[in-house]
C-alpha cells in the first residue's frame, strides 16, 4: 500500500468526496475517517428513521460504512454523489435488517426528544444546511395528497413491499403502485431545486 504522495491530514478535509473516495480505494483510513465525519449524520438519521431504535441504527450504520471501506472501488461518480451512494447502502442495509427481524414490528422512533438526546453541540454550516434541506423535503412530502405520501413513506422508510402496503391499507395492488408513481412525480416537481445533489 504505497502512498508516495500522501496528502497532509489537514488537507484531507478540503478534498471533495470523490477525491476522498479515491484515497479510500487505496485503503487510506484517514480519508475514510473524513468521509465518515461528513456523512455520519445523514446515515444515522436515515437508519434511525427506518429501524426505530438507536441500537439497530448503530448496527446498520456500522455495517454500511464498513461495506464502504471494503468496497470503496465500487463507487462510480457518474451514478451520483458519494452522499447518495452512502445513503443507498444504508437504506439497503436497513431494509435487510428490517426483513431479518423475526417479529414484523417496525416500530418507529418518536422524534420527541431526539434532538436533546443526540445533539452534539454547535452545528456546523453543513449541518445547518442539511437540516434545512431535510425540512424542505419533509415539507414537500407533506404537501402530497396523504394517500400518496403514506405509501411512499411506508415503502421507502418502512421497507414494506407494495403487497404488504396493499394489505395494510386494504387497497388493490394497482392502486398502491399508482399512488407511488404519482407521488414521486409530484415530488419531482416540488424538489427540482435540489438538483445539484440529487440530479432530479
Amino acid at each position, binding site marked *: 500500500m504505497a502512498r508516495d504522495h500522501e496528502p497532509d491530514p489537514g488537507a484531507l478535509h478540503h478534498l471533495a468526496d470523490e477525491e476522498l473516495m479515491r484515497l479510500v480505494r487505496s485503503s487510506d483510513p484517514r480519508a475514510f475517517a473524513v468521509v465518515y465525519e461528513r456523512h455520519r449524520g445523514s446515515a444515522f438519521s436515515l437508519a434511525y428513521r427506518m429501524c426505530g431504535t438507536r441500537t439497530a441504527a448503530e448496527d446498520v450504520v456500522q455495517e454500511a*460504512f464498513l461495506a464502504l471501506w471494503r468496497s470503496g472501488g465500487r463507487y462510480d461518480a457518474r451514478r451520483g454523489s458519494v452522499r447518495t451512494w452512502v445513503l443507498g447502502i444504508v437504506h439497503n442495509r436497513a431494509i435487510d435488517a428490517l426483513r431479518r427481524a423475526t417479529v414484523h414490528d417496525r416500530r418507529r422512533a418518536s422524534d420527541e426528544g431526539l434532538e436533546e438526546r*443526540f445533539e452534539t453541540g454547535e452545528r456546523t454550516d453543513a449541518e445547518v444546511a442539511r437540516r434545512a434541506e431535510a425540512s424542505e423535503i*419533509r415539507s414537500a412530502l407533506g404537501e402530497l395528497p396523504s394517500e400518496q405520501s403514506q405509501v411512499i413513506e411506508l415503502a421507502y422508510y418502512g*421497507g414494506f413491499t407494495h403487497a404488504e402496503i396493499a394489505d395494510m391499507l386494504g387497497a388493490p395492488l394497482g392502486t398502491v403502485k399508482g399512488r*407511488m408513481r404519482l407521488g*414521486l412525480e409530484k415530488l419531482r416537481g416540488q424538489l427540482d431545486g435540489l438538483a445539484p445533489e*440529487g440530479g432530479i
Partner: protein
Amino acid sequence: MRECDRCDDAGAWALGALPEQEAGDFAVHVQTCEVCAAQVRKLRPVADVLPRGVEQVEPPPELRDRIMAVVEREASLLAAAGPEADRPAAGEAAQSPRPRGGASRAGRGWRGWGFAPRAAIAAAVACALVGIGVAAGVLAGDEDEQIPRQVAAQVDEEQAPLAEAVLRGTGGQANLVISGLPAPPEDRVYQVWLRRSDGALQPTDVLFTPNSRAAATVDVPADLQKVEEVLVTHEPMGGSQQPTQLPVLVAEPS
C-alpha cells in the same frame, strides 16, 4: 410518449417496494421497454432524495470509535501485505473508474468459450463490460488471515445493465456478492463456473436466482488462489455441464 401497462411498477421499483420475482422481472423488462426505462430515469433520482428528508440526529461518538478500530486494523494488515495489496486490476486506472461501457475484454480474451459461434464471440468482445473497480486486493499468504480479499467483477452491461458484483475471499472460502441482477429468463437459473489455471472451465452446482431486491450472495466452492476466473451464466433449470450463454459477469481473483 407511448404508454406501457407496467409503468406504475417504476415507482414501486424506485422505492424498493417490488416483491422478489416482480423486481427481477421488471429489471429485465426495463432493458427492452423505453417507456419504463424513461420512468425509472425520472423517478429514481426522486427516491434518492428521500433519505435526505429525515429528521437529523447525530450518532454517538462511540460508533465512530468502533468503526475506526476495525478500519485501522484492516488498513494496517493491508499495509503489511505490501505494495501489491491494494493494487487495481491490470489495465485499470487507479485514479478513475473505467467509463461505463468503455471497456472490452478483448485484450484478455474469452478463451475457453469454444462452443460459441464466431459471431457470438465477436459480440462478446464488442459488448460493454463494466469494470466496477477493485477494493482490497491480494493479501500475504497467511491462510488464517480473516481480512477478506475483494475483487470487483466485470459485468456484461447488455445482460445486466444495473448489476455490480464483488468476489470476496477469506482463507479458503469465497463468495460472490451481487446487486442489480435481473431475474434470469423464464425456466433458467444462474450458474457459477470456475476457470482453472489450465484453462479448463468447470461447472459448479451453485445455482441461484436473485432476491426481491435483485441481489444475491452465493458461496463459490473454490480456493481463489487456484482459480483464474469465476463466471456466472444463466442456464436451463438444473444447470449445465457446458455453458450455453456468454457470461453475465466475470471475476478474476488474481
